[in-house]
């Protein structure tokens, strides 16, 4: 169990933030940390890793990592770290990168096999693709069999296909190694697939904490199909009106009655919602 009670003064680009986090994380849990940039996600991760100072306590089982006048050095904390930018040693082969963390050759063989990297073990990192590099980082992070695996947007630099592959690897390794994992992520599909708990930070405080479905599902009253977009246009058609709304990379149309149409302004942020019973799904052509 990880018991976190910390506070820290953060200097933001626009205003200063008082970070205040009280959090208990169960062993073997997979927690996603999400929130706007500047909300304190990465800072929290770095405090847990011992890379940044904070006031308060961090207790992992009965080990004190942070307490008044005490901060256990990062290398003694039993953590594995994975960042977006891989942070591999460029002058070492894939295998040497792993063995640098821990000399256990059998474990390095096992990890490379699990992530289908065995054939690349002699290669230098710069000859690898982004996805391969990130798999090496993940393996290296697990070489010390960490109790706590900390990942900061590990897949955000990868293309969607590689993300899906690595999500699978992350989940397999999380289960096999029985680590407790905390991952910073902005991607709802990634969070839904991997995490059992989502914590949303805003201005250094926890504003939501729950299952991925409860936290991520946007609802409007009892309507479970709800998306946010920008109102581009309202076109009158006979006795009805058609609202044109941009949602992400797509444009959708919504029929409005006359009274409704009069209440909106072009350019407004709007929520498009309907009952979960109404939309249809169909497979996209490959």
């Amino acid at each position: 169990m990880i018991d976190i009670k910390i506070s820290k003064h953060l200097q933001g680009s626009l205003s200063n933030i008082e970070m205040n986090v009280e959090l208990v994380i169960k062993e073997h849990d997979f927690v996603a940390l999400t929130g706007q940039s500047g909300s304190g996600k990465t800072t929290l991760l770095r405090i847990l890793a011992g890379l940044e100072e904070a006031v308060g306590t961090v207790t992992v089982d009965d080990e004190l990592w942070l307490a008044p006048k005490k901060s256990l050095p990062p290398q003694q904390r039993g953590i594995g770290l994975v960042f977006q930018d891989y942070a591999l040693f460029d002058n070492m082969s894939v295998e040497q990168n792993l063995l640098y963390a821990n000399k256990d050759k059998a474990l390095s063989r096992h990890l490379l096999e699990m992530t289908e990297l065995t054939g690349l073990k002699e290669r230098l990192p710069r000859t690898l693709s982004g996805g391969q590099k990130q798999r090496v980082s993940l393996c290296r992070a697990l070489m010390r069999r960490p109790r706590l695996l900390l990942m900061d947007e590990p897949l955000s630099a990868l293309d969607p296909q590689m993300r899906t592959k690595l999500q699978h690897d992350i989940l397999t390794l999380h289960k096999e190694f029985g680590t407790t994992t905390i991952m910073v992520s902005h991607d709802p599909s990634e969070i839904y697939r991997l995490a059992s708990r989502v914590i949303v930070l805003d201005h250094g405080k926890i504003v939501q904490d729950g299952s991925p479905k409860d936290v991520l599902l946007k609802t409007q009253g009892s309507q479970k199909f709800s998306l946010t977009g920008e109102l581009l246009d309202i076109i009158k058609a006979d006795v009805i009106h058609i609202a044109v709304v941009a949602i992400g990379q797509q444009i959708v149309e919504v029929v409005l009655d006359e009274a409704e149409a009069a209440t909106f302004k072009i350019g407004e942020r709007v929520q498009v919602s309907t009952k979960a019973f109404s939309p249809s799904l169909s497979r996209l052509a490959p």
Partner: protein
Amino acid sequence: MNHITATVTAIESMDDLTIVSFEAEGQTMRMMGLGLTLPIVVGSPVTLAAKASNIALAKDLKGELSTSNQLECVIESINNGQLLSSIKLRFGDALLESITTRTSALRMGLKAGDVVTTLIKASELSIIKVNG
């Protein structure tokens, strides 16, 4: 969007599915929904919503219909377009709107003052707000 003020009279849940019953203007209404995430209990005052294009009308209705919500309304006004008709309906304090094809409105001979039954499927009715 049509809004109707109602009171919750029953909540039935099973797995991730819920049927909520309401009383509105002395008539019974019913909504089907997925898992209930709203803070409602029997007696909660709510605002219900249904799109104008999801409201059908019937005149001199006989026989059985599967539609859960069959509300007696009085036509206040009709705006016939070239293809569609917008029909404003009085339901107690609420003014509802139904959008139908102009052909249907003419075939039914709808006119202001007519008593009609508005039909809303339980799957097309939403709770848009919990009041009070």
